[in-house]
């Protein structure tokens, strides 16, 4: 109980710094969820493309091989780029957390010294400081999750357009416009479908039950962002506390 009392007292005392961390966590969680939603939409579109492609005969598919290969490469590249970008975001989160904690450590130097002088272990002090940050990061995530509940459907619609645009850019980087039109015309002439040519390449979401949350990746965002904050800050605090402990022990008789 005293540990929790110290934690919440510290949160109140350093509220300005933690408010900044809350806002940063909120933004990072939001960007993460947006990225993962675009990725999930891309994967959905790729799956639906595969399902619609199955309606065509093998010979028609073979004739449009260049187009189909290009589409699959475009989806693959889009997915890969999003994963890399998301990975960079998580890495940046850990780095920003590390730097934030280093700066914060200077402000909390006297406090850390006081804890060490009354005999608190490095582990106990670190646990308190990390718990403070994790509470704030968790609160940032919760705020984003609530926003997703309220505005997720609208955001998902806007993101869907973004995903389509991203895919189109990838495809046009892979294939010439002429090739796309030619192969698409060949395919659409070989079979009667309920969808148009563009509807094959960038299909809408398949009918069926929609999830309660229109956005994706909340679970991965929570794990990754909170994990990055914890690791980033743990490194900085260990450095700071280790230096203080060495400073306290430095004077030899």
């Amino acid at each position, binding site marked *: 109980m005293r540990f929790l*009392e110290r934690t919440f007292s510290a949160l109140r005392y350093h509220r300005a710094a933690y408010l900044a961390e809350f806002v940063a966590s909120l933004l990072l969680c939001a960007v993460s969820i947006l990225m993962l939603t675009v990725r999930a939409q891309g994967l959905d579109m790729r799956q639906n493309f595969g399902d619609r492609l199955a309606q065509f005969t093998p010979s028609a598919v073979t004739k449009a091989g260049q187009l189909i290969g290009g589409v699959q490469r475009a989806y693959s590249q889009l997915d890969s780029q999003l994963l890399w970008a998301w990975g960079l975001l998580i890495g940046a989160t850990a780095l920003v957390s590390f730097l934030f904690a280093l700066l914060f450590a200077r402000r909390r130097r006297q406090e850390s010294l006081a804890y060490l*002088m009354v005999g608190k272990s490095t582990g106990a002090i670190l646990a308190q400081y990390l718990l403070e940050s994790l509470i704030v990061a968790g609160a940032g995530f919760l705020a984003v999750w609530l926003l997703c509940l309220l505005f997720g459907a609208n955001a998902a619609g806007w993101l869907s357009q973004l995903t389509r645009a991203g895919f189109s850019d990838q495809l046009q980087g892979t294939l010439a416009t002429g090739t796309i039109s030619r192969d698409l015309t060949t395919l659409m002439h070989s079979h009667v479908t309920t969808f148009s040519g563009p509807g094959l390449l960038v299909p809408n979401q398949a009918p069926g039950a929609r999830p309660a949350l229109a956005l994706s990746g909340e679970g991965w965002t929570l794990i990754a962002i909170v994990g990055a904050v914890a690791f980033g800050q743990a490194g900085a605090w260990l450095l700071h506390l280790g230096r203080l402990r060495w400073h306290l022990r430095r004077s030899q*008789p």
Partner: protein
Amino acid sequence: MPLFHNRAAKAFQAQLHQLFSPADLYFIYQPDQATLQTTTRTYSQQFLANGARKALGLIDETDAGIIPYLSVQANLLINGQTQSFALIPAALRRDLVFLDQPARDLTPAQSLYVQLFRGLFAGRQFLLMADFPQSMTLQEKRLFMDTATTAVRQTNTSLLVLTTDTNLVAAHPATSWWAAPDLQPTAAAQ
């Protein structure tokens, strides 16, 4: 090695009890502040080196170890509570406003009391105090010493006061040293 450490630690504790028994206030004269700081560091290091870290509590005006955002009461109990809260004088114990306030604005004298009782509640056997704050009047020092004497005798703790004040040392000849005793036991004693 563990056997050697254990024997050394026991010899060290025996030396301490020989020097500072029964539980009381003990005054150790220091000629100047620099020597006082050196002796404080030396004694602290000897406690650490002999595995007696948990037996020692520090009382220092400059490095008080007080957490500013915790209440006075939380600071008192930060290392646990091995004694009844009745150990604190009634006037202080009943001042709930003072106990509940954040500890960031304590006066040097108030800080001294908090550090004293923090060490006693934590069950420290020895408290090492690096002199009285300059701002404390003679009356305040006397009040602190009376309070501390009562409390340490109750808890079987010895309070070692390093001081540059010759009057304090002269006024307590039975529990004073003009030269700082060596805490390290001799090789024969080990």
